């Protein structure tokens, strides 16, 4: 498993790098709207209606943004929680922690890909 992780390291680092960069770029706006503007009543009801969400989220750019928002933060999570686990528990348990965290990120990314493809095209 350790050998496989070393072989996959360039791919893992690429996804981690995009997770921290693109994930942060996208999550800032997402968190700002749903954590600040929504409770302040600054998001109109119509903006979150199904028809509008489908129109925005069902476009090609919308699907790409949703895929990035759902999948990329999982890779940032996997790599940083692995690092945290090594800092607190030593490197011994990394043999099973790292595959577990990367498997969660890979499974989440796969689910995000499936979900994005399942969004109906706006009529």
């Amino acid at each position, binding site marked *: 498993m350790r050998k496989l992780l070393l072989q996959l390291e360039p791919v893992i680092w690429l996804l981690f790098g995009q*997770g*921290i*960069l693109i*994930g*942060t*770029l*996208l*999550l*800032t*706006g*997402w*968190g*700002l*709207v*749903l*954590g*600040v*503007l*929504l*409770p302040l009543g*600054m*998001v*109109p009801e*119509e*903006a*979150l209606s*199904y028809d*509008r*969400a*489908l129109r*925005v*989220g*069902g476009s090609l750019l*919308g699907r790409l*943004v*949703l895929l990035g*928002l*759902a*999948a*990329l*933060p*999982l890779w*940032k*999570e*996997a*790599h*940083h*929680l692995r*690092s*945290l686990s090594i*800092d607190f528990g030593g490197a011994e348990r990394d043999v099973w922690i790292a595959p577990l965290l990367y498997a*969660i990120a890979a499974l*989440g990314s796969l*689910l*995000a890909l499936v*979900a*994005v493809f*399942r*969004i*109906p095209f706006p009529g």
Partner: protein
Amino acid sequence: MARMAHPQAMQPARPPRTRTARPKAPDYLRPRMLSYLLFDATGIVYLLAGLVVLRAVFALASGPAAWQAFVADLHHPGYVAFHLLTFVSAVFVGVRFFRLFPKAQPARIGPLRPPPRPLIHAMLYAVWIAVTAFVVAAMVGVIP
């Protein structure tokens, strides 16, 4: 003519004491260590945020009823508090990561040199603000 010196002639008779510090547990309460651990711990927020977005995408794919249920949940104080935490975490990660990013650039790529560090830093902030403005505009309905 002098005989050639043995390659290890200058080696000390006994191996010297290592000059590296003995391994010891880090001081977890030092501000720099705390900041570093907090940076890593935002991974938990990113994991949960990714799962919330995943739920949103599945709800959007499942139809109006599932979407309305998801939107209703977004008004729950727990969701609001979590998204506020997501916003704070993303800002914390962005500020720290964008400060490190210019230092991690190679000194030279072929004949090209990267722009000065302050310029890279400014460009990252400009992109960050632009992308955030775009996401906010798309979500609150400014972009029709």
